[in-house]
């Protein structure tokens, strides 16, 4: 049987671990609330933007604007949004696995250190890397969106997608890869689905109506499409952030609970050993007394 001092030492170390994981849990919980609110608040806007755009898109031929144009051949580029820090459950692993299995031949742009390292090892070609602060400011989505747009327009990449973890609830997050460019009816629909919104893309006089444009069709598209891309990138950063903090909160809660359970078991063990020691001591004393009589 283990000796008393060893057990005491283990209890102490487990207690320390529990304290740390508990602190991390609290921090993540506070950040989670903020990130979730932000992500959910952005969905309304994203949804409406999608709706407007999909109504609009049906008014146009495919090749009216370079961002709408589908091209054959060419490579695919994925914007991978992962986390900077670990200890958030299987979040990054799941997303990484999805990318490896579905897009084995793509180049990547990354946000977040974790998957950059991992995918780098898997021989993905890294085009660029971005860092995004917490909480996510809109101004940091712009350069990313701009770079993606430029890479697409320069012609090397004919498809651009975003891989991120979609936030469903505190307990559930889902890794997904959605197409971003070229903007097509299909990609708008898919993104819409991702936003978890109602499927009212087609509504009343909306779809199919012949719209007038002010100042001009091209003017509207020129302004609307970049806004759409900016906002998609922003919204997906928010979703990933909300997922990250939720996953970390849950992972840390599990760790704290496990540590507490372990402490209980160890304490029981400790008491048993102590009791055994006392009993055997008593036994020795009484035996000695008997022998003296």
């Amino acid at each position, binding site marked *: 049987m283990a000796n008393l001092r060893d057990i005491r030492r283990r209890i102490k170390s487990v207690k320390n671990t529990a304290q740390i994981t508990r602190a991390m849990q609290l921090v993540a919980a506070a950040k989670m609330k903020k990130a979730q609110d932000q992500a959910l608040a952005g969905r309304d806007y994203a949804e409406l933007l999608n709706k407007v755009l999909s109504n609009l898109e049906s008014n146009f031929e495919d090749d009216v604007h370079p961002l709408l144009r589908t091209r054959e051949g060419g490579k695919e580029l994925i914007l991978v949004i992962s986390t900077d820090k670990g200890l958030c459950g299987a979040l990054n692993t799941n997303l990484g696995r999805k990318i490896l299995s579905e897009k084995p031949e793509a180049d990547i742009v990354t946000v977040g250190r974790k998957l950059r390292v991992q995918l780098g090892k898997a021989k993905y070609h890294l085009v660029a890397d971005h860092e995004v602060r917490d909480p996510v400011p809109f101004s940091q989505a712009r350069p990313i969106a701009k770079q993606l747009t430029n890479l697409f327009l320069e012609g090397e990449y004919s498809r651009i997608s975003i891989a991120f973890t979609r936030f469903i609830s505190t307990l559930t997050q889902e890794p997904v890869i959605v197409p971003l460019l070229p903007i097509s009816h299909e990609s708008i629909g898919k993104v819409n689905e991702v936003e978890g919104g109602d499927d009212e893309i087609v509504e009343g006089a909306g779809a199919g109506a012949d*719209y007038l444009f002010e100042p001009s069709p091209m003017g509207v598209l020129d302004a609307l499409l970049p806004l759409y891309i900016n906002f998609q990138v922003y919204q997906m950063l928010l979703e990933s952030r909300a997922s990250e903090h939720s996953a970390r909160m849950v992972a840390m809660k599990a760790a704290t609970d496990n540590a507490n359970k372990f402490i209980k078991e160890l304490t029981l063990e400790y008491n048993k050993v102590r009791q055994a020691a006392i009993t055997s001591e008593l036994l020795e004393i009484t035996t000695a007394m008997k022998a003296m009589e």
Partner: protein
Amino acid sequence: MSLHLEIVTPERTVFSGPVGNVYMPGSNGEMGVLEGHAALITALEPGELRYEQGGQIHTLAVGSGFAEITQQRVNLLTDMALGEDEIDEAQAEEAMKRAQEKLAKISHSDDAEDLSHLRATIAKSMAQLNLKRRMH
């Protein structure tokens, strides 16, 4: 059925409900919308948005964005929509000053996007200040 207005910013849905009419700062000047308007999509300039609800006229300072108008709906996407009581005069002035300083510095560079971004910031602050001052 009356006209349904929905105003959404990236942060929240500012307003959603039936209104009598809407006046918004379109890219070709102010435009008024009543029920049964022809389907139209327009860019919005920073400025003032008015709508009438239950006999009362509400005014908001809005940023740039888009409006999608159909017969019975107006969907308005903008990056800012503030009522008079939400506007912080000092803050708006501050933002404008900062943007103007930056603009003076980079006006020689050719980054069109930055430039237009700064101009939009200035126009947005102006819209806020105009609304605030007129109400007083």
